[in-house]
């Protein structure tokens, strides 16, 4: 229970002014502009868009600047902003097979049609601090565009290679009339179907999903994953405006997609075959997409007739704790005035201690109900 507190307006104003001053930092140092954040802190922008669940690079850059680089705070700002805008359209499903590839790898197949394309990756870097970046770098990074190699027009999905032999579960057919769950419109209910779970995971906290995915690898609901395919690049977004009745492209967004191939022992009804876990995220977010795919697969336990035994397989646990805006809000609400609660607890504790040293018949030591 919270009590209204009065007063403090002046202190609050001053606190905000101090925040603004600290946000700006030493005025002798040039101020960041949004383009710099957008371009040079692009992966921070990507994370804020993904978990803020709003694709707009400039807004994400603004949020990062306003939040002084606190990405969770920036995500909160973006989420709050989105509530001020009307929804104008729902897109056609993205066709990630037609992606303009920036990166595409498979850890399951060495020689895959279309080839392994490393793209702009941290992999194979030595993770040694490179002090040349302490100085301005200029524009020329010596990117080699003259190898004569070209990317094929189409990059087939790696998992389709297994499809032909029936070695992997086929993707579930989707009736075009099936309503698609939307947790921004209706409160989440359990049990959650996979569409609702994927939406929840797509905006879920990367750290939380990473830890859960990791837990599955360490044996808490192991699904023996292989990174079947990871691809990152630009995809077209199309909408079908009511007044036109045909699809128009509104632009392109960058997404990262991960398809995990997982073992499945088989059951009385099904022969053993590989199963799928899927991860998709706004921007360049490979770690997030991989973690999401691991958790997606773990959460399919019920559907695949596995006995859920681990946190990553517990949909209530995962889905109700994945959102960092909610989590941050509830943890941080502890800062709000709990003076009355605390006074009550204090009183109770004094009484219990007094009773313990001097028991009297009218004291009830069980009278300490939970706080609201």
């Amino acid at each position, binding site marked *: 229970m919270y009590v209204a507190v009065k007063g403090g307006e002046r202190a609050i104003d001053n606190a905000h002014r101090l925040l603004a001053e600290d946000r700006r930092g030493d005025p002798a140092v040039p101020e960041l502009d949004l383009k710099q954040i957008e371009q040079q802190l692009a992966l921070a922008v990507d994370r804020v*868009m*993904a978990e803020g669940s709003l*694709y*707009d690079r400039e*807004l994400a850059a603004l949020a990062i600047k306003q939040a002084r680089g606190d990405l969770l705070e920036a995500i909160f700002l973006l989420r709050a902003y*989105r509530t001020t805008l*009307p*929804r*104008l*359209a*729902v*897109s056609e*499903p*993205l066709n*990630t*097979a037609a992606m303009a590839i*920036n*990166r595409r790898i498979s850890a399951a197949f*060495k020689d895959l049609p279309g*080839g*392994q*394309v*490393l793209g702009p990756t941290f992999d194979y870097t030595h993770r040694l601090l490179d002090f040349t970046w302490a100085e301005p770098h200029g524009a020329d990074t010596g*990117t*080699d*565009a003259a*190898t004569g*190699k*070209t*990317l094929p027009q189409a990059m087939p*999905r790696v998992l389709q290679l297994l499809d032909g032999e029936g070695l992997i579960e086929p*993707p*579930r*057919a*989707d009736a075009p009339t*099936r309503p*698609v*769950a939307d947790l921004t419109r209706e409160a989440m209910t359990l049990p959650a179907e*996979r*569409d609702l779970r*994927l*939406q929840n995971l*797509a905006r879920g906290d990367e750290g939380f999903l990473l830890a859960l995915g990791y837990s599955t690898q360490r044996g808490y609901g192991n699904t023996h994953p292989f990174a079947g395919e990871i691809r990152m690049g630009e995809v077209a*977004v*199309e*909408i079908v*405006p009511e*007044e*036109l009745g045909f699809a*128009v*492209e*509104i*632009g*392109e*967004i960058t997404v990262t997609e991960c*398809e995990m191939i997982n073992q499945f022992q088989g059951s009385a009804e099904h022969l053993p075959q590989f199963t*799928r876990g*899927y991860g*998709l995220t*706004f921007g360049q977010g490979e770690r997030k997409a991989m973690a999401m795919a691991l958790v997606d697969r773990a959460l399919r336990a019920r559907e695949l007739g596995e006995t859920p035994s681990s946190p990553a397989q517990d949909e209530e646990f995962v889905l109700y704790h994945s959102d960092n805006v909610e989590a941050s809000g509830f943890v941080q609400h502890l800062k709000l005035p709990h003076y009355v609660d605390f006074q009550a607890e204090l009183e109770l504790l004094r009484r219990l201690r007094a009773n313990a040293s001097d028991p009297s018949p009218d004291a009830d030591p069980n009278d300490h109900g939970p706080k609201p």
Partner: protein
Amino acid sequence: MGLLAKSSVADLEAAWQGLSEPPSYDFLRAPETGLAQVRARAGGTGLRFNLGEMTMTRCVVRLRDGTSGYAYVAGRNRRHAELAAALDALLQDPAHRDHLQATVLQPLVEKLQVLRQRRAAKVAATQVDFFTLARGE
């Protein structure tokens, strides 16, 4: 329409200013910024789900002769939507279409193509052939 949506507002502005006589128009729907819910499919081909939202701006204009032009563009740039709608309206007119196709759309297509190819060449240079080493045989 997709091409106008993907082109930069600066390019559209230049194209509009470059018209010999830019027509006047009214708004049937003034530029309005909102959200599009972006859908995807599990596994790329399966169950549809909502991935997240993106900003978009729409606009509908009407030329003096009654022709309407529509625009739906990613982002929050109202001027982008307005110019795209105005050009879309002009493109409805058979008298202008071929000329605009050659003078406005084709250069935009080429510009986007050049950007895409330049990027694709750099990406293609990171294509790799992994060799596996047989062990213990």
